[in-house]
């Protein structure tokens, strides 16, 4: 008999992320509702984020191993406590503000209860996608409403929420996909190393996403762009300066206005929106690339101190795993020099080599010891016209015909 655990840890991170996604959507819906009330500017986005406490508490409640009948009372009990807390912290803001906060908490309590009672479907992982799609659709609709209502501040917040929702979904999907799609294997086989690899991917995604967001917000991209354009302009000017000199010598414009005479708007050599977009993308990509290279280098450095061979199962176990590194083929492409002969022999040998190498890459079971006849048998299944090529190759290899 398996021992019941007090707290269910499995998939808790993904579940938390999904709860946060729902919470973010609910506060944006609340913001829409607030537009029709006198509280419009009283409640800030930052103060709304304090409701995350309720999200965490609800998650803990539904993850504790308690009877089903206690779940709803436990949520209601916490809502009362939350109400008292709100009264304590927002006493000066009035009842309407407290009510607004409480409404979001109630919505999240209902969400939490429904997640608990649909636990079987939640485990399958499809509910994450459904929830994600629903919340994104709602947030896009909210963006449209705010656009119509002329609230750029709320559009920006909703867009930020969309980005956060996408990030959270990407991470939670990556965390749960192994358990969802390959549960029949993951739960019974020694796949610790697979999970570790997946975790590395998750960490990479998290760092890359958040770093790129932060950098995009922090980096003065326009200034960088202007500097780059200026640098390119200077370089071109330096390269083409002799031409300008020649021009100055032979042709001096008389009627053209000087720089000082030009109106200010004609003087704007700033970047166009397209260049701006391209440059920002390039900057972000470069930053991501640098980050990934840095991450890989660090990991390789750590890996140098690890054991080469990793055996995951104890002696006597029905299954044992050995994971080991194999030598990298460090020959560069240019250093591989094959002597294919000359003339017709060169053509035939090279074509034969290319065809067989391609097939080996594609999974053909050609061994180093395979004879041309064996290779022909293997290849004839996939390459229809391999027979004549093989004949020509054998003629050359076994010196049946003399070629130049």
């Amino acid at each position, binding site marked *: 008999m398996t021992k019941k655990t007090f707290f269910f840890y499995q998939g808790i991170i993904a579940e938390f992320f999904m709860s946060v996604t729902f919470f973010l959507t609910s506060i944006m819906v609340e913001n829409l509702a607030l537009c029709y009330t006198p509280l419009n500017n009283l409640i800030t986005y930052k103060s709304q984020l304090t409701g995350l406490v309720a999200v965490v508490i609800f998650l803990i409640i539904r993850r504790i191993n308690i009877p089903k009948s206690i779940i709803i009372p436990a949520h209601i009990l916490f809502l009362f406590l939350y109400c008292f807390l709100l009264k304590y912290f927002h006493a000066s803001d009035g009842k309407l503000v407290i009510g607004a906060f409480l409404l979001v908490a109630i919505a999240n309590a209902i969400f939490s209860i429904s997640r608990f009672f649909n636990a079987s479907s939640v485990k399958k992982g499809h509910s994450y996608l459904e929830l994600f799609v629903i919340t994104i659709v709602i947030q896009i609709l909210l963006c449209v409403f705010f656009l119509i209502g002329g609230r750029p501040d709320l559009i920006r917040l909703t867009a930020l929420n969309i*980005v956060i929702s996408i990030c959270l979904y990407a991470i939670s999907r990556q965390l749960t996909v*192994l358990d969802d799609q390959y549960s029949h294997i993951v739960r019974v*086989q020694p796949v610790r190393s697979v999970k570790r690899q997946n975790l590395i*991917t998750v960490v990479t995604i998290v760092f890359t996403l958040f770093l790129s967001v932060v950098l995009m917000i922090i980096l003065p*991209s326009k200034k960088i762009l202007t500097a780059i354009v200026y640098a390119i302009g200077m370089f071109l000017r330096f390269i083409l300066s002799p031409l300008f000199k020649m021009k100055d010598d032979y042709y001096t414009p008389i009627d053209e206005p000087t720089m000082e005479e030009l109106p200010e708007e004609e003087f704007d050599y700033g970047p166009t929106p397209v260049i701006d977009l391209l440059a920002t993308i390039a900057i972000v990509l470069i930053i991501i690339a640098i980050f990934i290279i840095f991450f890989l280098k660090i990991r390789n450095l750590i890996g140098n101190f690890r054991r080469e061979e990793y055996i995951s199962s104890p002696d006597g176990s029905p299954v044992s795993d050995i994971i080991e590194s194999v030598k990298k083929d460090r020959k560069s492409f240019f250093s591989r020099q094959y002597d294919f002969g000359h003339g017709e022999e060169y053509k035939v040998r090279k074509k034969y080599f290319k065809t067989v190498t391609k097939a080996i890459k594609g999974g053909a079971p050609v061994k180093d010891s395979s004879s041309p006849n064996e290779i022909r048998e293997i290849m004839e299944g996939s390459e229809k016209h391999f027979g004549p090529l093989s004949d020509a190759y054998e003629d050359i290899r076994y010196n049946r015909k003399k070629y130049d």
Partner: protein
Amino acid sequence: MEILIFLAIVAAVVIVELIYYRKHAMENLDLDINVSKPVASYGETIEVIEVVQNNKRTRLPFLLLKFEAPTAIDFLDKTNTSVSDLQYREDMLTMKPFSRHTRKIKALCRKRGYYTFPRVTILSTDLLFIEKFSREYKNDAQLTILPRLIPPEEIMTLLSVTFSEIQRRRTLLTDPFSLSGIREYEPWDPMRSVNWTASAKTGELMVNVNASTSTRKVTIFLNLEHYTQRKSTILLEKAISLAYSYICELSLEGVPARVFTNGIDTVTGAPSVSEDSSLDPFVSGTDLARIDLTHDAISFPELVESNIGSTSADDFVVVISPRTDAITQKQLIDLKSKRPSLLWVIPSFKGNPLPDIDSGLMSSVFNWEVSGHD
């Protein structure tokens, strides 16, 4: 604006990742499924070894290896093994760049036969688990499981009969080319057996003592024709086990044996015949292991007719045949006329009465009772 750019970048990265993995995920992957021993004894625990090598820089999040294994081997770890006519096993392996993952799964050999692991499919995904990629590989691993060895005490009587017959024949016949020693001359010794050199050395007449015949071979005819209308194979399997165990025991005593059978070899599709008398039971064992009882055997008279010429008149002939019908008995009478030392071993279930045996064969019948029933 920044957020839109961010989303565009995320989408671009995902698409690039997907395209890259679509093209390169299944490249430069070496795959091999093999067994720790190509020939295993019945009841022996072997290892099925899966080796996957990633010879590229691209990391695969995992590799799902699916292969078909015969039901004759019983995996000690049954996780992700579904059984129908074959066993379909799935194993998840790690695939780091330039790495090799070897997984050894212990399995118990529990049915005689010749088995292959012909098809292996590998499945992987991109790093974000968006798309699955699969490829099927041909595999040439083979496993031969030898017939079950019967404990010596169960065939003790048969062995006693055999050894006494060989001993009897040994005293009657001597081989003029094999010398076992030299002794003093006795009045009944022929003059041609005098060893003149030894006599000159000792000063007395000495004679050579020849060893008994070196052709103490045992020839086994194993009849694998169906013995019931229902084409039951239980006694046929027992007969194969008996033949193999018998050969093993004979080889321990230094008696070479040869087996002819009308059972069809799985690999060649022809009746299984051991090439020559041998003291190594391994060769006969693998031949017997490869017999496919799902195919109808050729007729026993045909087997005897085609192979009797390759046996010596001095061979001790043992026929193992669960089939006891009139045609078989007639053929055995005919065989007995050519090889008088014939012994007919009839594997039968305990408690089942022996069928009517021709009086000419009664002295040559040995009923070998086994437990169980059809």
